């Protein structure tokens, strides 16, 4: 509603204001309207003022994420009471969680320190510190140590939902899928919530129950806020993408980015959808943003492969150079990401490195990722007879992973198992025709060369 300011009337020429009763009547109506408008405007002004005051008092607390607040509170507490071993353990676990949320590895050292302190103060029966150590070990990819710490924690406290979660994660990565499901069920019984539902989703997805996987994530999403909301959106999007549902993937990523516009994992998901849709410049921009924020080996590989698929070889090579650099930094920091190393080397004409890395990883754990990586590494070295059983194992727990299926199909083709290869490659492309901008066309070409879809 427009507000007629009093000065509007006063600018009228005196002659207009003085001519006749009708004009006066009109004037008084006008004044009446003015007053009405003014009072309405006044009301709105007052209401907005009150809203401003209300708004100010309702956000008087700076909005700090609960995790950061908990860390600060714990730190303050420990300055006053340094013997509080339980808070040391909590702080350690919070640091591990913070590392996950921020992807900043310096938190791992802090976590280690806090957890050691807790155990030094209270070595026996300290299930909270043991659980924290298990979470830390998993985060550093030492899954055997993670499982061990979790098991020791559960011996003290069999009702520890978080320890069951740590054990679920470790067993999944080690390839003990039955054990992982069992641990997961204990976690769900004790503490239904975001942590257990997201794990239930992954468990279902691994075994091929996409519907249950989606449902669990949606239930988690209903409880989520902040970083965990971004997580749920990321994996709802990834789930949709993995079965070739681009629209659903796009919707999930967009919804996630609305609340967390800079989240790198959402940006990465968005990049994949854009790439699949052929929206090249937007995809490049999203990939760039994702690698800027998360300079991980697998991100550089993925981005590089996308650029390669576009024929932008120089730009692709730049990303591949970064892969080597980052990998060396990993090693210098005491971390081997043999899985990514193996896959990259296998795809970039370095079968020796590929096999060595894949075997190292396989030695540590025999889950489907390690099986697939070793299979593909062996294939790159021409050792397809050895590769095939591993590729089969990697695709045998129920889930349909288009990349793994492509790997298996290529191995079958190399072994001359034409009809089997056609079938496998058909399933791969039916599952997700956009599973990789570089490799999906290769899968398609290979399938054609074998006689086409079966």
């Amino acid at each position: 509603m427009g507000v007629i300011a009093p000065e509007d009337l006063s600018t009228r020429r005196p002659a207009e204001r003085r001519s006749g009763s009708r004009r006066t009547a009109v004037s008084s109506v006008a004044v009446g309207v003015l007053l009405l408008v003014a009072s309405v405007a006044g009301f709105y002004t007052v209401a907005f003022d009150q809203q401003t005051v209300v708004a100010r008092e309702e956000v008087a607390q700076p909005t700090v994420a609960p995790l950061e607040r908990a860390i600060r509170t714990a730190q303050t507490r420990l300055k006053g009471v340094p013997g509080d071993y339980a808070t040391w353990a909590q702080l350690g676990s919070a640091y591990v969680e913070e590392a996950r949320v921020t992807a900043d590895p310096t938190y791992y050292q802090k976590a280690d320190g806090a957890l050691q302190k807790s155990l030094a103060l209270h070595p026996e029966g300290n299930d909270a510190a043991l659980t924290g150590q298990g979470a830390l070990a998993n985060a550093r990819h030492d899954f055997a140590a993670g499982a061990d710490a979790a098991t020791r924690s559960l011996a003290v406290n069999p009702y520890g939902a978080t320890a069951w979660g740590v054990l679920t994660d470790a067993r999944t990565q080690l390839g003990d899928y039955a054990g992982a499901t069992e641990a997961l069920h204990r976690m769900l019984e004790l503490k239904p919530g975001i942590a257990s539902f997201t794990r239930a989703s992954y468990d279902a997805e691994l075994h091929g129950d996409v519907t249950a996987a989606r449902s669990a994530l949606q239930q988690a999403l209903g409880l989520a806020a902040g970083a965990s909301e971004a997580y749920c959106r990321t994996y709802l999007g990834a789930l949709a993408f993995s079965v070739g549902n681009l629209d659903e993937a796009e919707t999930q990523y967009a919804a996630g980015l609305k609340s967390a516009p800079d989240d790198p994992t959402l940006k990465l998901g968005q990049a994949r959808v854009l790439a699949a849709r052929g929206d090249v410049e937007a995809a490049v921009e999203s990939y760039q943003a994702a690698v800027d924020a998360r300079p991980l080996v697998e991100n550089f590989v993925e981005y590089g492969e996308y650029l390669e698929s576009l024929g932008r070889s120089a730009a692709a090579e730049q990303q591949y150079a970064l892969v080597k650099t980052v990998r060396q930094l990993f090693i210098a920091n005491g971390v081997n990401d043999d899985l990514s190393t193996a896959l990259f080397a296998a795809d970039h004409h370095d079968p020796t490195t590929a096999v060595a890395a894949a075997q190292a990883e396989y030695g540590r754990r025999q889950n489907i990722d390690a099986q697939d990586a070793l299979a593909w590494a062996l294939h790159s070295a021409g050792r397809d007879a050895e590769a095939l059983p591993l590729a089969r194992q990697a695709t045998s727990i129920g889930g349909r992973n288009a990349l793994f299926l492509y790997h298996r199909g290529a191995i079958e083709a190399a072994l001359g198992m034409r009809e089997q290869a056609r079938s496998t490659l058909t399933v791969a492309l039916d599952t997700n025709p956009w599973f990789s901008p570089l490799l999906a066309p290769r899968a398609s070409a290979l399938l054609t060369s074998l006689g086409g879809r079966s």
Partner: protein
Amino acid sequence: MLTPERLLHRRGRTATALFAAGGLLAGSAVIGLLPTIAGASSHREAPLIAADPAVDNTDVYAFSSPKTSDDVVFVANWIPFEEPNGGPNFYPWADDAEYLINIDNNGDARADIIYRWRFTTDDQRDSKTFLYNTGPVDSLTDPDLKFRQSFTLDVSTDGGASYGNPIATGPVTPSYTGHASMGSAQDYIHNLRTPAITDTAGGGKTLATQADDSFFLDLRVFDLLYGGNLSETGHDTLAGYNVNSIVLEVPKSQVAIGNDPAANPVIGVWSTTTRPTLRNADGSSADSGFTQVSRLGQPLINEVVVPTGLKDAFNAISPDQDATAAGGAVVDRVLDPEVARLLNSIYGIPVPAPPRYDIFEVFLTGIVSNAKVDVDGNPGTDNPINVDLNSQALNAGAATFQPSEMLRLNMSVTGPTGLDMKPLAKASRLGVIGGDIQGFPNGRRLADDVVDIELLALAGADDANNLGTAAPLANGDGVSRNDHEFSDEFPYLAGPNTEAVNQADGRGGAEHGAAIIPGGSASSGGVAGTLIPALTGGAALLLLTAGGVSLVRTRSVTRQASAAPEV
């Protein structure tokens, strides 16, 4: 675009060193910063720790209604350490959880009556605002109040298998959002709390509201478990904070066996919270659809088992499992309380030697004579407190008695009453140990000083007027009353605190003894659920003993001349 400088700046010393060393990084167009360990391929890292304050029980109270002696009152609190200045999220009730008050009236450790509150949220805020209200709120139906909740109360009499039609539905008194929004505490009470009081079918009333936290204690006392001592006392750590409260007042006949409170005066009470389990993809649930995630009866039981890792067990199990779960660990802890040993080793106070059947009696059976419940299983010895006060075994219609942890109230004691069974002019905050058998551990009144009672009881003291060797504990935690007065009218609670505890510049919290509990565990315990500063009615109170290890005598027994602790 990544640049070396930007990367190094973010990642610190090691990357800088590598760069300076010139090695393999020199000449690269982009310097890799320390790679993140998190997030490597195929290893998705799901959230692991999520605090869940909305289901965190903090306290349970049960007492005879001061004004209506036919009624019994239950108060249950959730969500500790609510900052009055708590925007923008404030403290709504979880609308997918069940908030429950359980009653065992026949002593078999199973709930005979369960009152269940469920909440629904009506969130009228549009995407443009997160504000709970867009102007001053003068009433529960004020259009400026954009975020509202309402409750439904129903009852189960078959242990939770089914619930009857609701006995009450009504509005929830919202979180206090500030002076400009809701005025003073008096305004809040007048405009938003009193109008939300809802009658229940069967002649009772109920209310769900925010209130001043009714618990009062100096948390620093419990630093003795972390190398501290009892030197820091006198400050109510919870002063200034709010809590979410449910109050229920019902006729005693509604909760007694056979609706006969005269013959069956004793009830056991505990509160629980549940969360929905994982649903199937079609929306159905394999089980009841809910899991118990929090439980609280006596105010310090959680602390009894902390930090041995039993807190999680306690939160997960029901009272009928107390004797057997975790290899009987709950009972073991009760019989040999850790804090008693600490009082002895730090203060040299001679405490009774384990097994502490006096503590067992208070926590697990109610104060009862040997003839009714033989706590040590030896019929030749009397119970340590050989008095019939508050065990369900005293009820005419009692079932076979099963020891379990819960708050036990003898509803026939309708006012402050001395050991000689005569009415007292004034209640004693020290309850039974202070000579007032209406008080804790016979139920729990709002003003009962459970921390002091427990400290004394752990030390084996039985009579506050005659402490003997427990004299060093005479001051307890130095906090003998709540920061606000309670009322003797429904809902009995003080109004909400309205001033910020923690100032924007960070002041305030530390003065209040830090908003984190020694042991830092919420009732949900362990690592999960403990990261938000949380105080339960027991959390961090590693003291054992539900207090009241007192030599309550019947009229026919004379008091011992010495103050030697009773074992």
